[in-house]
Each structure stands twice: as C-alpha cells, then as structure tokens.
C-alpha cells in the first residue's frame, strides 16, 4: 500500500529566507503524525506546501501516489484546521460545516452535518455563530468542518496553541481519540514537545528547514540522533560531551557501587517542584547539571559536596 502522503526533496525558498531546505518524508495511512520544531523551522511552510497554499521551489508533494504540485487547494483531498480556526463569521456552525459539502455539490448534506456535529459533541449548537461560541467550541467546529469532507490527510496547524493550559491537556486526549475513531491520517504541526510526544504515533523533528530525526516518541526522546533533537525534546545535562536527561541523573552523598558512572560536584541549589525536586549542581570540571529526584530522597543544601551519578546505558552519545 502506498503511503498517503509523501514529500520528496521538498524545497521552498522565499526572497529573504530558505524556509524549507530539502525535506523528504513518508507518511503511511491512518495514524497520528507530528511535525515538531521551534518557530521559524519551516514546519508551517511545509504544511502550507502540502495544503497547496504555497508552490514548492523544487521537489514534489505526492498525495496517494499522485504528484499534486500543480493542484490548487480546492483540488487536493486534504483539509486544514487553521491556528485561528478561520471560521466564517457570517455563517452558523452548521453552515460552516456544510460549506465544503456545498461547494463540491455533495448529496445528503443535512445528515452528514448532523453526524459531524455528533462526532465533535456539538449537537445543539448548530445555529450558533462563531462569535457566540467558546474557543474550544470553535475549534471543534473547525475540526468538524474539515473532517466532514473525509480528506485523505487532516492537517492541523498548532491547533491547541490558542487554548488555555487545562483545556489543552484535555483536547490532546480528545484529538487522539477522534483520530482513532475516524481513522483519517492526522498531521499536526506544533512547537510544543509535550504535545507531540503525547499524541503522535510518529513524529519528525525539524530545524532550520530540514528534518533532523523521524521516529516514535520513544525514539526521539530516548535515542535522539542529534544534539538539537536531544535539547528540543527535553532538558539535557551535558557532561564530558555526553548527554543525560535530568530524570536519569542522580545525586549521592556516597560513592555508588553498582557500576554507575559518577563525578564529584557541589550543590548550587534546590528547587521544589511539587511532584519532584530539582537539585542543581556544579561539577568539579565546571559543567552544570540538574538532577530530578523524588521528594522522598531528602533535602540537599547549597555547598554540599556530592556525587552526580548515572547509568552508562542512559547516556546519549553523538558523533
């Protein structure tokens, strides 16, 4: 079976910027994928190239095995959920959802709109205008509007950025559940690594217009292939050129005896985070490290002499 979406050596140059600098990516059918990266890395541009709002400088976009470079957005079977939702203010929720169906002259519009509203749990709000809906409700209308067209791929541009933190966590689960239910391939673009890790089956980490690593959340977090990926996916302690996550970095007052590696250090501070404690230490070699330890391990005071230790198997090594 062909991948539903394929990018081949995709390049997009703007007059003063090389937004996308040679990207190749294959996305199989059905599943939740993410493009993760800092602002300016080209992830949104990539999304727009797939949707058809930009034309590639070189390279190809293939949907279902067909090169679609020349196709306008309305000719491609992908749909986008915009960051600001882009709901039509002069139409009700139901009319927004029906918009695409009407343009393509599809039959049975009323029933499909009803089903879409049920899918996003907005039944009863179909006659409301966007201005009368909450942020979360507007997002669901945007989702329904795109999903009702049954696109090959659903593109989501930072869909959770505009929501408040509590709602965001809830929506992550809902989106993941929705994707499972409808079976359509979701491609999400975000700068929030927690979002990407928690929702994706696979994700691609982007930086400065190029892909640094593709893999499962476990792959990119535990076995990052570059320093950038390591640093972007979470905090890193750099000791002797080796990377260590704070949660595998431990503090000990005595020398470890179980084969762990260690370095002498001085405690420079301690931060209580509620669910754990971060102990900040400066190694004799001058590097700073943060160790994430459980509350129960006792308190460490500034100036204390301790050892920073870790298991060799937790090391992240880069060429």
């Amino acid at each position, binding site marked *: 079976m062909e991948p539903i979406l394929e990018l081949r050596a995709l390049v997009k140059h703007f007059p003063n910027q090389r937004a996308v600098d040679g990207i190749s990516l294959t996305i199989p059918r059905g599943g939740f994928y993410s493009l993760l990266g800092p602002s300016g890395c080209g992830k949104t541009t990539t999304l727009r190239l797939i*949707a*058809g*709002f930009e034309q590639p400088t070189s390279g190809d976009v293939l949907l279902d095995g067909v090169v679609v470079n020349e196709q*306008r*957005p*309305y000719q491609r079977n*992908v*749909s*986008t959920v*915009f960051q*600001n939702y*882009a*709901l*039509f*203010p*002069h139409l009700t929720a139901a009319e927004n959802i029906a*918009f*695409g169906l009407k*343009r*393509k002259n599809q039959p049975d519009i009323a029933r499909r709109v009803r089903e879409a509203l049920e899918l996003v749990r907005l039944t009863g709000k179909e006659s409301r205008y966007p201005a009368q809906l909450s942020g979360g409700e507007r997002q669901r209308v945007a989702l329904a*509007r*795109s999903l009702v*067209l049954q696109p090959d791929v659903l593109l989501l541009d930072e869909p959770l950025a505009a929501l408040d933190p509590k709602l965001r966590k809830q929506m992550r689960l809902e989106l993941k559940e929705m994707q499972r239910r409808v079976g359509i391939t979701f491609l999400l673009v975000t700068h929030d690594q927690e979002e990407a890790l928690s929702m994706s089956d696979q994700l691609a980490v982007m930086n400065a217009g190029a892909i640094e690593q593709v893999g499962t959340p476990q792959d990119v977090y535990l076995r990052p292939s570059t320093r950038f990926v390591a640093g972007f996916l979470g905090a890193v302690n750099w000791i002797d050129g080796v990377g260590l996550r704070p949660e595998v970095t431990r503090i000990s007052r005595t020398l470890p005896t179980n084969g762990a590696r260690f370095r002498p250090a001085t405690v420079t501070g301690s931060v209580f985070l509620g669910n754990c404690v971060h102990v900040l230490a400066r190694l004799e070699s001058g590097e700073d490290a943060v160790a994430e330890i459980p509350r129960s391990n006792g308190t460490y005071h500034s100036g204390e002499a301790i050892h920073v230790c870790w298991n060799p198997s937790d090391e992240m090594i880069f060429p």
Partner: protein
Amino acid sequence: MKRGLGLYAVAVYAFLHVPVVILALFSFNASRFTVWQGFSLGWYRAIFQNRQLMESTWNSVIIAVVATILSTIAGTLCAYGLWKRGSALLSGSLYLSLVTPEIVMGISLLALFQWSFRWLQWRLGLHTVILAHVAFSIAYVVIVIAARLRTFSPSLEEAALDLGATEWQAFRYVTLPALLPGIIAAALLALTVSFDDYVITSMVAGVDSETLPMVIYAMARRGASPVINAISALIVVVFGTLVLISERVQKS
C-alpha cells in the same frame, strides 16, 4: 487643561454647525427678510411648486443612483484587486484623483467629452455627467473598502479554498458577505458626493441636464431667497439621515 479643551471644543463645534442650523431655522420664517416674522411652511410649499427645482432634483437623483452603482462596483472590485497585490500606478492615480482640484477635473473631463464629439454622435447631457461623477467618486469607494479589507483575515479565504471553493467562490461566499457593510457605506458616500457636486457637474452638464446644485447656485448668485433655506434644510436632513444609516451599517 481638560476643561479648557472642552470649552474650546464647544466653540469650534458651534462654528461648524451653527451657521447651517440658523439657515435651517430661517427656512420657517414667514417673511423673506432676515427678521423673524412668524412661523410658516410656505417656503417648503414653494419648493414643490417650482418646476425647475423638481426637475433638477430628479436629474440629480438619477445621476447619483446610476453613478453610485457603477462606481461602487468598479471601486469594490478595484480595492479587492489591490488588496491581493498592490499597483503603485493605480493607487497613485486614485490618490491623485482625490486631491485634484475640482475645477481641473471639470475642465479635463469637458475637454475629453468635447474631443469625443468628433468621433461619437453625442452631446453633453445626463450621460456625460454620470461618467464625470463615476470619475471622481471611484476613489472614495476604494478608500472605504480598502479600510474594511485591512481588518479582514486572509486565512478565511484560504480556509474556503481548502474546503473546495475556487478563488471566485471564496470571494463570493466568504469575502463579499464580510464586505457588505463597507460596500453599503461606500455607496452612501458616493451617493452623497455625487448628489452634492457643483463644480464638475456645471462644466459637463448639457442644457437640459440641470442638477439641483446648479439651480441652487444660480439662485444664490441672483440673490438670497428663503426657498434656498428650505432646500438647504431638506438636504441637511436627508444627508444627515444617510450618514446615520451609514454609521449603523458600518457597525455591524
């Protein structure tokens, strides 16, 4: 400073509005002299009995409506096109047409029409006035619509394309409805500017296409008459109402 500024504002507003208010008040004066001699609606009755006034008003209405329709359509499409991608030449021409002194516009259009008489079988008349009015009112429409477009998010049109609409359909079903209040406001503005014009109209009007401003001007030139007061009061009320409507519409 605030109280001083407030008093000052009252004075300036008085300067701006009192003359016309007085004019309107004296339209109800029974006598034709500037001494109040009792309330009367006689001058208003005189308006409707004056054939020239009635005909010229009708001409003004026809010209204004036709010119407004043409310039609103052309101006709206132009503002939208320029919003997609600007054109220094077109924008510059529109701005220039706004600041060009009316007399210069008037004689230029007259020169154009005179020159065209050689090739086309027509003379000065309602049609030349209508064309002239379209000429100077397009810029007003473009300004109003352009201002409205500045607050319109391009992502709405992108969403429309994304959902299967062609570029034309995106304009028709998404952008145009959003622009409607602005289009109405622009049309009302064009209507007012057209109805009120004297200078350009007087240069390109034919013998049988007199407009209301032209008649008022002639009457004012001959000497004052309370009939002008009455007409003025009516014009102020009608135009004032149009302004209010326009503001209401723009707020939606």
